């Protein structure tokens, strides 16, 4: 029986962690993810989990601790945001290249500077090439569900990669909403036991981890890592299918909302998808064929699927809640535009950077973007494709 509850995104993730009962949590407080280790250490204090909670002295050490724990043969989790993720940077790469399926809850927050505690995606987007699988959530339900699915994906023998489960800071992490939780036993059985082939504490066979990798081998190892990321696509879908059986909730690489006959579309990540759906609905009432794609999986990037989903669209706005300062668009735009390059008839694609540092994203802003798309759909592509939305001029 599903459990109907009301809780914040942070509590939902901590709740999933309790149900999974990992071996080690290494964590350091940073707004807005702090509540996760707070909730979790209470579970530890209450004896509800067998986890060793390691209150490290920095996020760099949090990730180092998780790497050590996972390499030792245990399951390791952590939670962080913003500068915390940035401090982990070096170790994110070590985790991924050591093929250790650690699970990280990233509560998205703007990256300094100037310092800002509110939501955007600049933290996790900066880590997009670190070799981690990245799942994004629109709301607390998806944050919970993604976390429940993460280990099955990361630990799969064809994958063996760490997974970053992202949700929007404050908007999702702190807002209390309705949620449907799964029973403890169901989650435990779904996630299963962690049974790595080789690990440091395997008594029959000692293991050396983290070699100096010379020219003769390094590139082969990187190729294997790239293959693992490609393999993750099939595993993500397989795990989603199994998850649907226990939850009746359907997941894929992205969600398509009213896309079947859409002429103008928006591609977006995270909590703003809810706002965008409301705009799509109101445009539909006006007779405008608008649609929305909400990205759930950013790494691996579902390029061919996205291209297929956008193939029939005349114009689309790609929404980035992070700038990449490339001078020509944000990270999602770069991926989507690249994915669509092979299409015979390409939609007009424009990029909007929006919601940086917690800047409110309202329906009128998104409607402006759609109105522009209608214009481009008629007149063709604009010369400039890189815009900032909701900025005072």
């Amino acid at each position, binding site marked *: 029986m599903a459990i109907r509850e009301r809780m914040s995104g942070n509590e939902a993730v901590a709740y999933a962690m309790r149900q999974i009962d990992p*071996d*080690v949590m*290494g964590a350091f407080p940073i707004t807005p993810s702090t509540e996760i280790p707070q909730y979790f250490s209470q579970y530890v204090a209450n004896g509800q989990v*067998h*986890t*060793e909670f*390691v*209150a*490290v*002295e*920095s996020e*760099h*050490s*949090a990730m*180092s*601790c*998780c*790497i*050590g*724990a*996972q*390499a*030792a*043969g*245990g399951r*390791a989790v952590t939670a962080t945001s913003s500068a915390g993720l940035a401090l982990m940077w*070096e*170790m994110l790469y*070590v985790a991924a290249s*050591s093929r250790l399926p650690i699970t990280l809850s990233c509560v998205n927050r703007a990256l300094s500077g100037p310092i800002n505690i509110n939501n955007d995606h600049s933290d996790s987007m900066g880590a997009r090439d670190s070799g981690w699988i990245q799942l994004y959530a629109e709301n607390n339900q998806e944050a919970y569900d993604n976390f429940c699915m993460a280990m099955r994906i990361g630990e799969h023998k064809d994958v063996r990669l760490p997974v970053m489960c992202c949700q929007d800071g404050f908007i999702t992490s702190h807002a209390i909403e309705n949620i449907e939780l799964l029973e403890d036993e169901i989650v435990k059985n779904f996630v299963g036991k962690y049974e790595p082939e080789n690990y*440091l*504490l*395997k*008594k029959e066979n*000692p*293991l*050396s*981890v*983290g*070699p*100096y*990798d*010379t020219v003769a*081998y390094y590139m082969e190892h990187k190729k294997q890592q790239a293959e693992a990321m490609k393999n993750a696509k099939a595993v993500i879908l397989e795990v989603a299918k199994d998850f649907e059986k226990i939850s009746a909730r359907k997941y894929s690489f992205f969600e398509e909302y009213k896309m079947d006959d859409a002429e103008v579309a928006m591609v977006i990540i995270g909590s703003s998808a809810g706002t965008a759906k409301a705009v799509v609905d109101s445009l539909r009432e006006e007779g405008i064929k608008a649609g929305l794609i909400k990205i759930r999986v950013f790494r691996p990037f579902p390029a061919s699927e996205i291209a297929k989903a956008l193939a029939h669209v005349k114009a689309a706005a790609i929404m980035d809640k992070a700038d990449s300062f490339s001078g020509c668009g944000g990270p999602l735009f770069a991926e989507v535009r690249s994915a669509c390059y092979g299409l015979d008839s390409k939609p007009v694609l424009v990029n909007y950077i929006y919601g940086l540092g917690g800047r409110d994203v309202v329906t009128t802003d998104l409607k402006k973007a759609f109105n522009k798309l209608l214009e481009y759909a008629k007149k063709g592509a604009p010369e400039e494709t890189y815009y900032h939305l909701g900025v005072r001029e």
Partner: protein
Amino acid sequence: MAYNLREELNKPERFAAGHRMCAGCGAPVAIRGVLRALDPQDKAVIANATGCLEVSTFLYPYTAWQDSYIHTAFECAAATLSGVQSAYEAMKKQGKIDETYKFIAFGGDGGTYDIGFQSLSGAMERGHDMVYVCYDNEAYMNTGIQRSSSTPRFADATTSPVGSAIPGKQQNKKNLTEVMAAHDIPYVGQTTFISNFKDLHEKARKALYTEGAAFLNVMAPCPRGWRYATEDLMEICKLAVETCVWPLYEVDHGKWILSYKPKEKLPVSEYLKKQGRFAHVLKKGNEWMLEEIQKGVDERWEKLLKKCEQ
């Protein structure tokens, strides 16, 4: 049972020959000395900070380590090992492991005094049942002899070179052993290689078999950085002790114990003259440098004697 080097050397070797460390380097001597202190039936997981030791002992696909071993990065051997040790605790609680494992981190002075200091301090404060061993060769040797906070005053290093305006490193060596003692952990020891390795062995055993966090600082000279003849390794360590440049002592559950008091304290020049990095100190006209070094050594020695109630 009394210490017997011959018997100790009969134990199965846990650090294989064939690694690529230099001849005359103190680091592998320190590693073997520490690993010999393990009971042969006990298993171990070794964590290693990036440095000479790591890049010379675990080049894919070869490893010199008979025990499980993990290297992640330069500044986080202690944090990495605290993760391994925590997983061990969790898995033991669940009955997944029944063997006794010991946890040992090895880092050079760069990875310990400097970039890894925060991670070390955190792991020691949290009290993980592990030993952190610093093999202190007083500079960043792996990258080419750059000064660290462990480099002593006036030493010639590639980022504190001897020039016509500045005669080598201007700052004093950080007293890390005392900093670690200030963490109030169960065991802190300072040692190096003298005579039959008894002091290193006994301190390593105490560090390994004392419950909780332990720190061992082992002076481990580097022939390239210190510029000495490779065969002089043991002689230099002995002189470091006999001149009181590197006193042997331990802090066992808060009690300061001097391990060795030279019968006749030798002048520091005896230690310096063996090393090219101090050649300028012994040149005519630079007597003031030698005096300053001697004064610093004397002051620190007197303070240590007081702490050890000598």
